[in-house]
């Protein structure tokens, strides 16, 4: 019963909260409308939702969010300094190939989003045969350093969360 009407409980909860935030209200009428949206929208969308093993381990997810937030702030400052021309001479950009152990498509998508949302690093492509990703770095000093950052800072946590 529960499975039939609420196939994606987390999506439903998000839609409920989204509707109420969008309307800035806790009016009973809007609560009812939000409930209708939260039930109907996932049912209509379920043919398009790929069935995948979702994320678990909330503590690791929160840790990852914290790490990503710190990295975004830090790389914002770094890229702003590069644009201002503070250290223009040494800056050299380039591509790095990194072999990954992740198999879950959601984990790969999460890694792509994390890497791209930090200014200064950009996920370019992924080769599923060789399990290699191509990364573009604005301030490439040491390729090994970036390999270590991706492997130990993000990939280890993503493995814990998704696999």
């Amino acid at each position, binding site marked *: 019963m529960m499975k039939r009407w609420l196939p994606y409980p987390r999506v439903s909860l998000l839609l409920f909260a989204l509707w109420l*935030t969008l309307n800035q209200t806790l009016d009973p009428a809007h609560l009812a409308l939000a409930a209708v949206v939260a039930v109907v929208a996932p049912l209509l969308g379920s043919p398009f939702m790929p069935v995948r093993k979702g994320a678990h381990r909330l503590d690791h997810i929160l840790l990852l969010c914290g790490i990503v937030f710190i990295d975004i*702030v830090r790389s914002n400052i770094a890229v*702003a300094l590069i*644009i201002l021309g503070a250290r223009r001479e040494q800056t050299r950009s*380039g591509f790095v190939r990194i072999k990954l152990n992740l198999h879950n498509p959601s984990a790969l998508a999460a890694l792509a989003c994390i890497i*791209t*949302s930090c*200014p200064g690093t950009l996920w*370019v492509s992924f080769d599923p045969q060789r399990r290699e990703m191509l990364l573009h770095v604005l301030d490439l000093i040491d390729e090994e350093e970036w390999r270590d950052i991706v492997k130990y800072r993000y990939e280890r946590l993503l493995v814990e969360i998704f696999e």
Partner: protein
Amino acid sequence: MSGASIPLWAEWVVAVLLVSGTGLAFLGTIGLTRFRSFFDRMHAPTLCASMGMAAVVLASIVYFTVAGQRLVVHELLIAIFVTMTTPVTFTMLARAAYLRRLESDGDHFPPDARTPSRDT
């Protein structure tokens, strides 16, 4: 000209957030015009869409919360939406640019760069 008036400390908080956020967005756009190669240019607008956007949204939240005497959070939706969509568009654009690559764009592509497979 301005709507509701707010206390001076809140004005300073909003002012600092606004100037730093729009300054970062401006810097990001400067980078877009100044960098030499396409993949270098792709890094710059992330500044506008991450910290620049976050600071302006925070300024808006502080202003309307103090002016209206109640918590106004619906600007957070913009922040969440932009944070979630920017990496998606940028990875798609980077992939498209990589598939259409030319050495004359000014980027130094890796020597064994073969055409990436298209199904991810």
